[in-house]
C-alpha cells in the first residue's frame, strides 16, 4: 500500500500549501500522511524494542541503571550509545568514549541539512526537539515520503515513537540486565532491515536510482570492516552520490 498510493505523485508535484486546496487533493494528502504515520510507528516499534538490548548490555558492562537511562534519553543515537557503553565495559578512558561516540554521530549533520527544507520554519524550542529526534530512522522515514506534509508526519511519528519506546525499553533492559534473552530471536533486526527496504522501494523507479542504490549498498559492505561503526554508512552514501552525479552526465 505504501508503494501503491505513491505512484501517481511526483516527489515535487504536491509540495506546499497549494496542494491542499482542492478537496480531492486534501483527501490524498491525509492518506499520504497516514501512510507516513503508519511507517513511522512500525519503525518505532521495531527499533524501540531494540532498546532492551542496549539497556541490558550497558548494565552488564558496568554502567549504573541511571547512566544507562541517561545515555538513551540524552545521547539518543544507537551506534554512539553502544560504543560509549562498550568502551566503558572494556575499561577504556572517558576521553576515548567521548571521542568515539562523537565521531559516530557526525553523520547527523547531513541528516539535519536534508530535513531542514521539510521541517522549517520552526520556533527555536521545536527546532531543538527536532534536532534531538534526528536519527537514522526518523530521517529515513521522512525522506522516503513524497510530499512536504507527509515527510513532516513521517519524521515526527518515527522520531517520537522511537524516542518513547527506545527509552522505555532501555529501562526494561537495564533493570532486567543479563536475564534478558537475545532480541534478535524475535527477528527485530530483520524487521528493521525490511522497514528500510520498504522505505527505499518507492525510490527505485529509474535505472539510475537502482544502480546508484546498488553502489551505495555494496560500498557499505566493503567499508564495514575498515571503518568504525556508523562511518561506513556516511562514507558509502557520500561516495555513491558522487558516483551517481558523475554517471548522470
Amino acid at each position: 500500500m505504501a508503494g501503491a498510493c505513491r505512484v501517481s505523485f511526483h516527489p515535487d508535484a504536491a509540495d506546499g500549501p497549494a496542494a491542499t486546496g482542492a478537496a480531492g487533493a486534501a483527501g490524498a494528502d491525509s492518506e499520504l500522511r497516514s501512510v507516513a504515520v503508519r511507517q513511522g510507528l512500525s519503525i518505532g516499534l521495531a527499533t524501540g524494542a531494540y532498546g532492551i538490548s542496549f539497556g541490558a548490555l550497558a548494565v552488564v558492562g558496568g554502567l549504573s541503571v541511571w547512566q544507562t537511562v541517561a545515555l538513551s534519553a540524552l545521547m539518543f543515537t544507537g551506534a554512539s550509545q553502544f560504543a560509549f557503553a562498550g568502551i566503558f565495559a572494556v575499561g577504556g578512558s572517558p576521553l576515548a568514549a567521548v571521542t568515539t561516540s562523537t565521531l559516530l554521530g557526525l553523520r547527523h549533520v547531513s541528516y539535519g541539512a536534508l530535513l531542514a527544507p521539510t521541517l522549517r520554519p520552526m520556533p527555536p524550542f521545536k527546532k531543538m526537539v527536532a534536532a534531538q529526534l534526528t536519527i537514522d530512522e526518523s530521517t529515513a522515514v521522512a525522506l522516503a515520503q513524497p510530499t512536504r506534509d507527509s515527510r513532516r508526519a513521517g519524521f515526527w511519528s518515527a522520531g517520537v515513537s522511537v524516542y518513547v519506546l527506545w527509552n522505555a525499553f532501555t529501562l526494561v533492559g537495564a533493570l532486567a540486565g543479563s536475564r534478558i534473552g537475545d532480541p534478535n530471536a524475535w527477528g527485530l533486526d530483520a524487521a528493521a532491515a525490511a522497514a528500510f527496504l520498504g522505505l527505499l522501494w518507492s525510490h527505485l523507479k529509474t535505472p539510475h536510482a537502482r544502480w546508484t542504490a546498488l553502489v551505495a549498498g555494496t560500498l557499505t559492505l566493503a567499508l564495514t570492516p575498515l571503518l568504525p561503526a556508523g562511518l561506513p554508512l556516511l562514507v558509502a552514501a557520500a561516495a555513491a552520490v558522487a558516483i551517481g552525479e558523475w554517471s548522470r552526465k
Partner: protein
Amino acid sequence: MMWWIALLTAALFSFVIKFAGHLIPEKWLAHPAVKRTADLLTVCLLAALVAKQTLTSGATVAFDARVPAVAVAAVLLWRKAPFIVVVAVAASVAAGLRALGWG
C-alpha cells in the same frame, strides 16, 4: 563522577552535531543542484541502511536469517503488500529460522 562528566559531554556533543545540520542557512539549501543531490543522497542513505541492517554484524559482513527474511520482504513489496505486513512477516521469517536453529 568522571564517567558522568564524560557521559554528559558526549551527549552534549551528540546534540550539537544534530542541531548544527538544522541551522544550515536556507539559501545554501535552496539551490537546485543541492536539491538534486539531496534526492540522490536519500536513495544512497536508504540503500546503505538496508545493506548495513541486512548484511553486517558489528564490524563484519554476516549472512544469517536476516537475508531470507529481507528476500521475502522484497517479494512482498513487489506484490505491493502494506508496509506493516512486510515488516511483520520479515520479523517472523527471521524468528522462525532462528527457532529452527539457523542464522
